[in-house]
């Protein structure tokens, strides 16, 4: 019964056609397996711990050793080198590969006893700001702790109401609550976004060859026959086949990649699947639009790659969109992944209800409309190629 339905015949034909194509095997099996698992492996440790640091203790006193013990106790740092000269400080980053150098000045303890202010100097290697930020945060924490304990000792003899000590030392206590990845785990942070940006690129690039590849291989007549010349059957039959492949990739990401690397899936799975389904659909139709507009599949492929490659950078995932100039913000807006990502983070990380992602769903639907407009453009431009039967009848 299904065999009489044009869409089903095209769907079945397309599934087989795609399965036989080496490029589709590369895109849907080899590339994801290699790329997804490589990404997972890169960030498998999740959080940065035990950054190598060097300490230059120019005082060698009880207090300086106490300070060093605080550094040793911190999960952020691992003292890998002790240095003993100013010259060593300069070379420590390059020669010893440390991320920070802690310099405790001479007479550190004596000056504290004499109530002369002292300063611990920290040199952080900010060629990588991920390390730089971590060093800053932990160094300030540790130094404040040591400083506060010295301050208490100075306050006590002057006479202070015990109930007011903490209020005097730390009048404002900041109680932080972190929503979405409270573990600060880079694996949870980056892998979902990176794997989905690759997934959408794969779908878009494969779809951008859906029609022009048939023209190139002279197999379009087979498509016309399967659809009985009905363009909507061609379009939606192919769409269903690409959707099947796309959703299978989603399955690999959610059911294999995430569990293997211990990445939890927060949020409502229904909302998540709605967003993923929409992203894949939008990319398929945009890809189809390119494929119908450009007879030369290499040019369509070029455009698909040019358009999609910077999607991650422009999505605002690692560097916020509001910090970009207007032109780049505009470019970010014309990439569906940007809007998908906002919705995805809301659902996946913050577990927000569905109504919070309506704006993103709305924007993705606009892209769907653009996809259909491109398809109409392709129909107008290449109608002789798309409807060859009519032409033959006319002859």
């Amino acid at each position: 019964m299904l065999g009489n339905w044009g869409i089903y015949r095209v769907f079945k034909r397309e599934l087989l056609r795609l399965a036989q194509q080496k490029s589709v095997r590369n895109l849907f099996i080899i590339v994801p397996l290699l790329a997804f698992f490589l990404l997972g492996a890169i960030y498998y440790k999740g959080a940065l711990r035990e950054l190598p640091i060097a300490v230059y203790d120019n005082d060698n006193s009880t207090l300086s050793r106490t300070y060093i013990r605080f550094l040793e106790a911190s999960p952020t740092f691992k003292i890998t080198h002790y240095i003993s000269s100013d010259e060593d400080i300069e070379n420590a980053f390059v020669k010893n590969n440390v991320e920070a150098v802690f310099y405790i000045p001479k007479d550190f303890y004596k000056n504290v006893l004499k109530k002369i202010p002292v300063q611990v100097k920290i040199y952080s290697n900010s060629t990588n700001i991920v390390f730089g930020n971590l060093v800053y945060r932990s160094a300030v924490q540790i130094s404040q702790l040591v400083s506060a304990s010295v301050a208490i000792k100075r306050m006590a003899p002057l006479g202070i109401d015990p109930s007011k000590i903490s209020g005097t030392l730390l009048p404002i206590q900041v109680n932080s609550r972190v929503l979405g990845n409270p573990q600060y785990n880079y694996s949870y942070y980056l892998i979902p976004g990176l794997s989905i940006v690759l997934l959408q690129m794969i779908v878009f690039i494969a779809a951008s060859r859906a029609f022009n590849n048939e023209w190139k291989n002279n197999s379009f007549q087979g498509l016309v026959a399967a659809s009985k010349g009905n363009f909507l059957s061609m379009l939606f039959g192919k769409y269903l086949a690409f959707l099947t492949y796309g959703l299978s990739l989603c399955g690999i990401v959610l059911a294999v990649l995430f569990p293997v690397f211990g990445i939890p899936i927060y949020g409502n799975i229904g909302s998540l699947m709605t967003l993923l389904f929409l992203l894949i659909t939008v990319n398929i139709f945009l890809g189809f639009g390119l494929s119908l507009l450009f007879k030369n599949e290499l040019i369509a492929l070029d455009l698909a790659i040019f358009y999609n490659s910077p999607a991650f950078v422009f999505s605002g995932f690692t560097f916020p969109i509001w910090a970009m100039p207007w032109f780049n913000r505009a470019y970010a807006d014309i990439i569906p992944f940007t809007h998908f990502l906002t919705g995805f983070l809301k659902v996946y990380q913050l577990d927000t209800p569905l109504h919070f992602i309506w704006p993103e769903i709305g924007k993705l639907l606009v892209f769907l409309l653009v996809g259909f407009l491109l398809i109409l453009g392709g129909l107008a431009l290449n109608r002789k190629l798309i409807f060859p039967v009519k032409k033959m009848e006319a002859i």
Partner: protein
Amino acid sequence: MNLKIIWKLIQKEALLVLNDKSILLVLFVAPFLYLFLIGTTYIKKDEEKVSVGVVDMDHTKSSRTFLNKLNATQKVDLNHAYYSLPEANTGISAFDVQGYVYIPYGFEKKLKRKETAPIGLVLNNTRFLPSNDINKAVTLVSLDYAMTSREKFFESKATLPKLARSNADPISVQVNSVYNPTNNYGDFLLPFVLFLILHQTLLIGLSESVASDREKGLMKVGFKDSNNNFINYISGKIGLYLLLFLAYSFFVLLVVFPFFDLPIHGNLMALIGGSVIFLLATTLYGWFFASFFNTETGAMEVIAFTSYPVFLITGVTWSINEMPLIVQFISNLIPLRPFFIFVKKLAIMGVDAPLYLNEIIHLLILLLVGYVAAYFRFRYLQKREPKLGNNRRAPLSTP
């Protein structure tokens, strides 16, 4: 090695590029487009004025003073006022704000009574950069309060103001961000991303050309035109790309770096020398890998997906030591890794030659590996590709 043959092969390659719109786009449009698009993305170098909400239940002078101090910091913009916690949580869920500060009732009273006044900071940590910046700003403002409070205590005990200040913070800390004084995102990422753009466009363009030769059966023609000499063949095939991307490297170092205010602290000639070795190694690797593809589309599709993994595996954004050994091993086989370390040491850190010698040696070893791999692949393909008969296709140079 025959220079005349090499020159002819370079001319032939130029014709192939000119006749292939796709390669033309990749080689002459994509690098400029990406250098502009990606480069300008980070032109402000860092984010400012991150959107933060406020739930002020205290509504006192003290709470307003605290909030004003916070708003005066560079990274925070208090632009949403909420009247309840659920409303503020909705603001976070809708991504209107990246976090909010909650000041409970009794904040001022506690401050005046010298009790610790707790405040709440709720952060949207789905993106690390804004979350870190808000956290840092709030922490610094609260520490500022701590110093003032301690100072006032000592002053109240008849301590001289100068002494009171030193007593308040007996052990201060000075964090010097070396090599990137403002610890900004642009200076951290941009130098490497610019070279990644060149790396990827070079690989895609070259791969398309090599795969196109195989697709059209012109590989054997190229071998024959080079007199079956590997040096002639490979120099003719990759020479054009090498020269073109060397010119792009000059452009990046001499124009793009100054335009984006990126530092070159080390010797420019050494940087160019290192770039030559890197480009040579990359083109040899590129030819070797591309020779496994039978179609231009196949080569393009696969190489296009290497951008993110290749960049991340180099250790620019994430410590290489935190990666599994197998990944570290693969990373060390890619010329981009030693080249990035070389750029970091020479351009950003400005170190002397002995300190980047290891990277140059690493690059030279990879150049040798690329050369040997390409040589054996050439010999293999020479034997395997079908022999030319009378119906051989004409080389592109033949009209």
